[in-house]
């Protein structure tokens, strides 16, 4: 059920609402009638053991998979069956579990891929109107520089280096910049700590919190295995197991839930 429009003043309508979202791959039920909502401005943690459907959820949201059943509303609009491009236009940006930066390209180029919707792509403009292109380019360099600087000053001095020359944490930063440059309303972070040390992870989370503070309204859904990240970053989290939501609430409450402990640690420990 959706909230009628006039009620948004009293009850804040969720930015993202999923109802009965189901994703079946042949015999495998990757998402099982998932109900999930994300409030505007919230940071929601999405946790669960490997293969519990977290990344599948992101892939369904961003139009990579078409769900078998269910509804997804984003900002009051139905986005089921939308192409990845349409989802991006609607204001959802994401990072990927395994880095999907274009390594041979520069940091600037990678960030500009995220800025695609704001750039002029007509062949005539790009080939013939080099002066106008130059102005657009200069603006973009400025924007990328200031975004990178807000994120982490070290990065803004490496704008024209190939992404391949960066270490893991800077690559992750670039990926997040690429997702943020188009000012999305919802940011989906798929395991941002993967492949990084604990110290690097802490640094990256500081950066994310800081840029969120600087930019104001930004809603985030974060998939993580690193529990102290979840504890620190999120006000609320949802636990998935075999595609089903098994718990929901603040991390401290969820972490002591027997069903969650069982999912993570197995039956024996839960009984003990």
């Amino acid at each position, binding site marked *: 059920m959706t909230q009628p429009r006039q009620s948004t003043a009293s009850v804040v309508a969720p930015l993202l609402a999923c109802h009965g979202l189901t994703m079946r791959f042949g015999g495998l039920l990757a998402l099982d009638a998932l109900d999930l909502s994300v409030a505007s401005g919230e940071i929601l943690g999405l946790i669960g053991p490997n293969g519990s459907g977290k990344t599948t959820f992101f892939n369904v949201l961003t139009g990579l998979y078409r769900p078998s059943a269910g509804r997804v509303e984003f900002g009051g609009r139905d986005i089921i069956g939308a192409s990845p491009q349409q989802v991006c236009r609607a204001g959802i940006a994401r990072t990927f579990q395994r880095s999907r930066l274009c390594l041979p390209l520069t940091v600037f180029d990678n960030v500009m891929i995220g800025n695609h919707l704001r*750039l002029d*792509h007509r062949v005539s403009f*790009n080939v013939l109107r080099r002066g106008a292109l130059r102005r657009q380019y200069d603006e973009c360099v400025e924007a990328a520089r200031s975004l990178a600087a807000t994120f982490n000053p070290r990065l803004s001095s490496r704008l024209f280096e190939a992404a391949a020359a960066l270490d893991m944490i800077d690559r992750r930063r670039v990926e997040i910049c690429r997702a943020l440059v188009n000012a999305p309303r919802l940011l989906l972070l798929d395991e941002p700590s993967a492949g990084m040390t604990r110290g690097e992870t802490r640094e990256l989370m500081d950066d994310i919190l800081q840029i969120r503070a600087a930019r104001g309204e930004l809603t985030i859904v974060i998939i993580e295995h690193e529990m102290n990240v979840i504890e620190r970053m999120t006000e609320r989290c949802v636990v998935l197991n075999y595609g089903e939501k098994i718990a929901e609430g603040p991390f401290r409450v969820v972490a002591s839930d027997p069903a969650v402990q069982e999912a993570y640690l197995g039956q024996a420990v839960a009984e003990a």
Partner: protein
Amino acid sequence: MRVPLEADVRAPARASDLPVAALGIAAVAAWLWAFLVTDRVAILGALLAVAAIAFVLAQRSAVAKRYGLALARRPRMGVAFAAIGVLAVAAALHDQPYPLLMLCTVMLFVVACIGLDIQTGYCGIVNFAGAAFFGTGAYTAAVLAKQGVPHLFGIVCGAIVAALVGSLLILPVLRTRGYYAALVTIAFGILFSTFLEVNNALGGPQGLKLPGIDLFGWRFNRDVDIGGASASFYVNYVVLALALALGAYVFSRRVDRSWIGLTFDAVRLDETAAAAFGIGIARAKIIAFTLGNFLCGLAGAVYAMMQGFIAPNNFTFGESLILVSILILGGIGNPLGIVPAALIIIVVPQKLQFIQEYRFLLYGILVVLILLFRPEGLLPRPVRRYFPAPR
């Protein structure tokens, strides 16, 4: 992979760089002249060895790198130098039709390969039907010339028809990925030459004859008189082919150094991520494919009128492989690399008549060696810089 940093690019330019760079171009022009003129295997071998040594030295020398940067900062100057160099070579060869014909052929193949490079190197669409699009341009120009259509119009139509045929082929290419898309183009390339063989309206296996180009009353196939000295009519074609090659080069550079080039890169490197940021995959591929086939068709149309005769076996799958090996040898994604690669692949077999029969063997060995020892090609693709760095 060595990636030039911004600091390198901003290395101080010196006023003395340009004259020395011009001297370098003069040396290259002299080499090109000797390369086109010689008919002795020993001299050809020596020239290739000199080029290889110069190439290796230039790569290691900081001075040569600075000259390169000085030219990179002034792209127009580089184009002008190249034009002057080729015209000087043509002037030196003015009474030798055969080397002039080779020079034109190389430049027209450069145009076609720049087209393929936009598809393969920039956007990642592997096209094994280059010769078919080249041939589409050639046959269109031939048929229209026979109908008495003005030649300029016929040549442009050749390019457009090649682009249109490509826009049909792109449909199955869009539905497939990787190897399968390449297979679709191979099938089309073979289909095209078979179609020509059996089509009597297009001359069947005997092919078609074409008149020489006539642009606004300027007849290309008439020897040129300049101040009493008579020059081979191929000089006309050199000028036209040079203009097309430089135009294609500037065009592909501008495409690459723009948001379109960036979009092509994103599609080539990761379609899933590209789509997640709103990039229309199909649109990018259609644009790249169309632009590339347009250039192939354009080169084919001019080539046909220069040759005066075309037949199906000019446009077989084997010819497509030659175009692809030029790309691989030169360095996929770098239009500059195409020039030396086209020179080697096209001219060397012409010089070594005994190799003619085995030229595919030669190409095969060359491609394997390149892929083994220098997979990024003679001139690897540099990191994109949208605009020349400030002086």
